[in-house]
């Protein structure tokens, strides 16, 4: 029957639309389901995963010492030339010459956070930090020197 089909078509169509409206109406009436995170306001409580790859940092201990030997493994592992290791020769008190880093230059604007340098590092001197707020007004500020001024290599790391 044509008329029967016609009517059932209309009824089915309208009921499918009403089902959809019930779903959206449910969410309208239940503000508790809202999932918005008010980002700059919730900075204090914002939980970033500790593994989040935000930038490369070089951890220093309380004596201002790091673990980087200047082996350039990270520089070789980097696909983009983000890291540049500038080495110098330090003379130890016994008069022995020892290779050490002068500066570990890290260019954040080139970095793709691929983590290959951290994996390549034999002495775990660098790691990824979960900081993701990198915006600066001057592009040159994105080029960072990772070792702090006056820092030196921790004892016992070869």
């Amino acid at each position, binding site marked *: 029957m044509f008329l029967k089909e016609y009517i059932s078509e209309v009824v089915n169509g309208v009921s499918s639309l009403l089902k959809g*409206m019930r779903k959206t109406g449910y969410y309208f009436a239940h503000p508790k389901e809202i999932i918005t995170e008010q980002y700059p306001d919730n900075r204090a409580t914002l939980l970033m995963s500790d593994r989040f790859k935000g930038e490369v940092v070089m951890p220093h201990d309380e004596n201002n010492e790091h673990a980087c030997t200047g082996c350039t493994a990270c520089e070789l592992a980097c696909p983009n030339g983000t890291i540049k290791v500038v080495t110098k020769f330090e003379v130890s008190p016994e008069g022995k010459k020892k290779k050490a880093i002068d500066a570990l230059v890290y260019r954040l604007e080139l970095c793709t956070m691929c983590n290959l340098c951290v994996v390549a590092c034999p002495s775990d001197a660098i790691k990824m930090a979960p900081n993701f707020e990198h915006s600066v007004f001057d592009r040159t500020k994105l080029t960072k020197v990772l070792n702090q001024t006056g820092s030196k290599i921790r004892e016992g790391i070869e």
Partner: protein
Amino acid sequence: MFSLEGITTYVQDWLFMKFNPTLALAMECVIVILLAISLFAILGLVLVLMERKVAAHIQIRLGPNRVGPGGMFQTVADTLKLIMKEGLVPDMADKFLFNLAPFVVMMVGMLLLAPIAFAKNFQIWDINIGVLYISSVSSLSVIGILMAGWASNNKYSLLGAMRSGAQIVSYELSAGFAVLTIVVLTGSLQLSDIVNAQQNGWWIFKGHIPAVIAFVLYIIAVTAETNRAPFDLAEAESELTAGFHTEYSGMRFALFFLAEYINIFIVCAIGATLFFGGWMPLHIGNWEAFNHIMDYIPSSVWFMGKTFFLIFLIMWFRWTFPRLRVDQLLNLEWKYLLPISLFNLLLVAVIAILGWHF
């Protein structure tokens, strides 16, 4: 009792007491124009904010919440931005029509305000062919849209305007038929008569099945007529970027945007008047106590409450349904809505003759 009725009579008496009748009439006109324009501005701000909030809550978001408490002044900030923006006119566009189009659309909205009864005895012009006036004037807005689409010298605009033309012309029919059912039940084209006929119950209850069908048809048809989703083909974002107002910016765009919301308000106000008794409070048969309590709520609150409920309904549609395709849109009108509304009109005529409605 607090009512807008008292204020209008007071103002009118005072004016006629102080000035001669011609001057008083002129001053009344100025007041009405000012009120209409400020109503436009306020409605635009409120409805845009409402749309954004409704959309946000349906989409499990918060919506605007930065400017002012709860984002109250967001639309004010938006308006300021739009006013300060440069209004670009595309090269090789028809500059006269391009500039005129937003005003045409806007003026249609303003004209439609005239016969609407906002409260008891609070009406700009109680014309005796009110319903006819509304259906004839409201179809003028398509001219503005076609003008905008043609004058923009943009292919997207042209396609959007053509779609809009086909759409508004077809949906005008079933909107008209839905309105006619109420006219048949009331026996008058005058809006104040229609409201008064609902003294002891709104048409949607009194006219039962045909009135409900007419209401559903009316809501669908006016959603299409105001170019709202799921019938927003004229500005189908994913297909035509922004349809007929692709090339508009700044204040001209704001006028289109405002006109869209004003049109929604007007069609919902008319819907509320026809089916929900306008400013008439909810009265149930002979429950005297209940009716008295309802009478204490001011008539303007009743009117606004009903209108905003219908507006919410239309917004709810928008944020739930996908868009129709252009041929399906016309199919829906000519194959479903029009036959059903013709049948419904017949049904309502029979009911009105036999007196089966309450």
